[in-house]
């Protein structure tokens, strides 16, 4: 059992292995994600009944909740990848951490903007310094900080370490976001989905939400894989496997 774990560890650290596996899996994640998103969005927009109190504006939930969940999950993945890189000195891990940052930031922006737009008809305001909103904004700033570190520090090793440390330290923000609606009853309503109780929404409204959440996660995998492959191509450009890969690509395009 330990030898297979050791083999997995070495595989995960191998850029060539990651490139090949991610190339094979990406189409599946793309199609699964697209089917789930299409079904979820069409169902949520056109077939789900309107909310008793909020009317049709509640349909924003099918974008807002997946973006919020995913921006937080992505942050945790980024922090874990940074930690693995620091502790096990795995360069692959640092590459994944670097690549997640802009994606996570775009999702945090999606969450904040759709949330603000949803808030206007629902609560009468675009923004309030409510605990959850503020901590989500801090999440976005943490993402910007990580991105800025990679852009600002020339030395790759130092940038990796500094970004990883920022990501790890910022992880404290995640439980704050999660429990903010329980600890402080200021504006944002409590969780609809919990691990313990039945959802407070009717199934015709709830199921499309599950579909769009999973669909977004699938698309997230496609985005992470694509960006990581680009990083690997550049970093490993002098290796035989990259040279062969590019040769095969050029031949396919009839350039050689």
């Amino acid at each position: 059992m330990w030898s297979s774990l050791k083999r997995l560890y070495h595989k995960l650290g191998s850029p060539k292995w990651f490139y090949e596996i991610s190339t094979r899996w990406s189409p599946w994640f793309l199609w699964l994600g697209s089917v789930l998103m299409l079904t979820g969005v069409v169902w949520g927009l056109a077939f789900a009944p309107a909310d008793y109190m909020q009317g049709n504006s509640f349909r924003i939930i099918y974008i807002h909740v997946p973006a919020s969940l995913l921006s937080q999950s992505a942050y945790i993945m980024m922090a874990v990848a940074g930690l693995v890189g620091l502790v096990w000195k795995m360069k692959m891990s640092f590459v994944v951490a670097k690549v997640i940052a802009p994606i996570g930031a775009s999702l945090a922006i999606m969450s904040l903007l759709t949330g603000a737009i949803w808030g206007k008809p629902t609560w009468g305001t675009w923004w309030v310094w409510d605990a959850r909103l503020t901590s989500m904004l801090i999440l976005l700033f943490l993402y910007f900080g990580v991105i800025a570190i990679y852009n600002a520090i020339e030395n790759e090793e130092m940038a990796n370490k500094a970004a990883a440390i920022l990501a790890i330290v910022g992880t404290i923000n995640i439980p704050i976001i999660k429990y903010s609606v329980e600890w402080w009853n200021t504006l944002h309503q409590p969780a609809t989905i919990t691990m313990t109780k039945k959802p407070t929404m009717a199934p015709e409204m709830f199921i499309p939400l599950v579909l769009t959440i999973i669909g977004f996660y699938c698309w997230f995998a496609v985005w992470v894989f694509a960006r990581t492959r680009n990083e690997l191509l550049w970093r490993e450009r002098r290796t035989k496997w990259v040279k062969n890969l590019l040769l095969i690509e050029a031949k396919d395009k009839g350039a050689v």
Partner: protein
Amino acid sequence: MFFDSFSSFLEMGKHGLYVWSCYGLAAVIVAMNFISPILTRKKVIKDIQRQNRREQN
């Protein structure tokens, strides 16, 4: 279908502006996340090939 007509679907019971700007915004961000790595990949391959050619000379 929850809506009786396409126009009521677009109106979203007077919340149309809010709902559609959210979905539009999401579509833009999703599109950027798909397109950006595709463009970057082309650039990376070109840069590598340029570097290879320079080193050959």
